């Protein structure tokens, strides 16, 4: 019977001699990474803020608003899709609810535009509780199907309920700044969308660093294991779904105020949801700026193809081609691909084995003050020799 006095319980070789240099190198590399990241974020923010001044004409500016709208929606989507790995194709519908909610609160209830926007987002968040409660019970493909069903149901409701929503004739939303000329209108909304995007990114970043975020990522990795470790998985999924819905509704509502005209076919379209997923996947779904970068690529691509090919379905073909190329060459998304490209330019990182067998033997000799019984190969195998001996004695 083994007892505490056996040498097997002696501390294993922690190889403190090798740890400090590795640690210092890693720290330096991490600091460098941090600097690069901060510079990149500052440049990106500067580019986004400078864009309205640089845009040559109001059309380009309005395209910028569309792209930022996509960035907001895609980032909102990634609260669910990025953290928990639940792929929702129904977020277009949540944006549509936000849009119609805002529009109806302005036209029917007479609320001021931005009060209506906030109230609509709260209402959609409240509605997301029962929706999430039902949808988040299923995982994987089933969840995707349920989220599509949400879009189709809402499309039918909003088309048929013409007395309230205007049905297929559409719903005109009064402009919040009636005396602004069109270019100024675009400029103001551009900055409003940029502000909302900053807010969504900030929330994402805070969740990413939190205990809550840790639990969500564990759900993405393996929900059953996460649950077994004591993470309240269902509550977490529901909370993050509601947060995601609120941001999505804000994006949809702001779009309604900007665009001024809503049609159920476009507001409750599976295509919108698919674009959001495409953008997030393309940019890098686990990355804070992934959805934004994806929105820049896909949003600009969509607008360009629409101009180039006119009002045909060819822009969809072109977008599909874009997706195929990304999946082929950057399956993890653009940002991770850039990251690994940068990583390749660095000196090779140390491999799994940090010490050689000879070094380890020397360490053990130094530690034990006696020659090692056997030549260890693995850094973790410490007292294999003694262990084998002692068990032989016992048997």
């Amino acid at each position, binding site marked *: 019977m083994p007892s505490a006095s056996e040498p097997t319980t002696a501390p294993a070789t922690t190889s403190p001699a090798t740890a400090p240099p590795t640690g210092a190198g890693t720290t330096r590399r991490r600091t460098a990474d941090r600097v690069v990241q901060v510079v990149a974020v500052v440049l990106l923010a500067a580019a986004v803020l400078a864009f309205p001044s640089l845009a040559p004409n109001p059309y380009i500016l309005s395209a910028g608003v569309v792209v930022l709208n996509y960035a907001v929606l895609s980032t909102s989507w990634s609260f669910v899709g990025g953290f928990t790995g639940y792929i929702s194709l129904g977020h277009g519908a949540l944006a549509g609810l936000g849009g119609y909610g805002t529009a109806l609160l302005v036209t029917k209830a007479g609320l001021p535009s931005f009060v209506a926007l906030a109230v609509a987002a709260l209402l959609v968040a409240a509605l997301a509780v029962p929706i999430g409660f039902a949808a988040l019970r299923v995982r994987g493909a089933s969840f995707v199907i349920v989220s599509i069903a949400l879009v189709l149901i809402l499309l039918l409701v909003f088309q048929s309920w013409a007395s309230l929503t205007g049905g297929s004739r559409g719903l005109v939303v009064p402009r919040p700044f009636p005396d602004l000329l069109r270019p100024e209108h675009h400029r103001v909304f551009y900055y409003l969308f940029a502000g909302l995007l900053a807010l969504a990114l900030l929330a994402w970043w805070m969740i990413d660093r939190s205990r809550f975020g840790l639990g969500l990522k564990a759900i993405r*990795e393996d929900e059953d*294991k996460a649950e077994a*470790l004591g993470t309240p998985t269902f509550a977490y999924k529901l909370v993050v779904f509601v947060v995601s819905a609120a941001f999505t509704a804000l994006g949809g509502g702001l779009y309604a105020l900007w665009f001024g005209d809503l049609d159920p076919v476009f507001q409750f379209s599976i295509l919108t949801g698919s674009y959001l997923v495409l953008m997030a996947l393309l940019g890098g779904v686990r990355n804070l700026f992934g959805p934004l970068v994806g929105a820049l690529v896909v949003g600009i691509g969509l607008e360009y193809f629409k101009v180039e090919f006119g009002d045909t379905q060819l822009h969809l073909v072109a977008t599909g081609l874009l997706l195929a190329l990304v999946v082929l060459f950057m399956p993890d998304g653009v940002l991770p691909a850039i990251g690994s490209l940068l990583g390749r330019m660095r000196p090779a990182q140390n491999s799994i084995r940090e010490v050689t067998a000879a070094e380890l033997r020397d360490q053990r000799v130094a530690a034990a003050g006696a020659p090692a019984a056997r030549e260890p190969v*693995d850094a973790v195998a410490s007292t294999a020799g003694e*262990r084998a001996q002692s068990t032989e004695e016992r*048997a």
Partner: protein
Amino acid sequence: MASEIELVDIQAGYGRAAPVLRGLTVSVPAGQIVCLVGPNGAGKSTVLKVASGLLKPRSGKILVGGVDVTGQGPQRMLASGVAHVLQGHSVFREMTVAENVLLGGYTLKDKALIAERTAFVKEVFPVVAQRWNSLAGLLSGGQQKQVEFARSLMVNPKVVLLDEPSMGLDPKATTTVFEQVVRMRDAGTAVLLVEQNARRALETADLGCVLDLGRVHISGPAPQLLADPQLGELYLGGRPAEPTAIPKR
């Protein structure tokens, strides 16, 4: 000696199928490693599932530290002090070792306690401290197992249930893993161990139980079982003519 966990006369099975455990009784004394061995299908893993609350027994009682916890779910069992390390590799591969370990202490709210437990598991498992910021999926099989051990110790459990910790490991890594099991015990945690690698497991354990057809057929001090000629026969899949009467402790 006080038992950390006691399964008394457990009947358990899956769905409507015939029971897997038929009146099994096992107890794990404080500070001891108890090893369950037996042929495939004897119900070894099922014992652990019942003990950790993943499977509710049809009848029988589960006592943790003398308190009846029969019928509680996995989270409650964890809170009562029973941690389960699953079969195979169960680290979160795309998360860092640090995140994996911290998830183990997810039910802890007190930050000072979390820091204390983190320091403790880093000390018990040096590999965990060394590879703290690596992605867990990049570690070798034996190292991943130690991360799982560290994760399970975060909540300072009374007893850790280990399901085939040596599965898929080479002999050297197996040795390391068994050493870490001993370290866990010496750090004050009782261990209920299930192993295919019966000889190695019994060499490590304090007590052994041989399972067959859902019952404990032989139990006793592990060295005594190792010397038992019938063990070989049992482990090869045969069954003894009658339950052997090595007296229980």
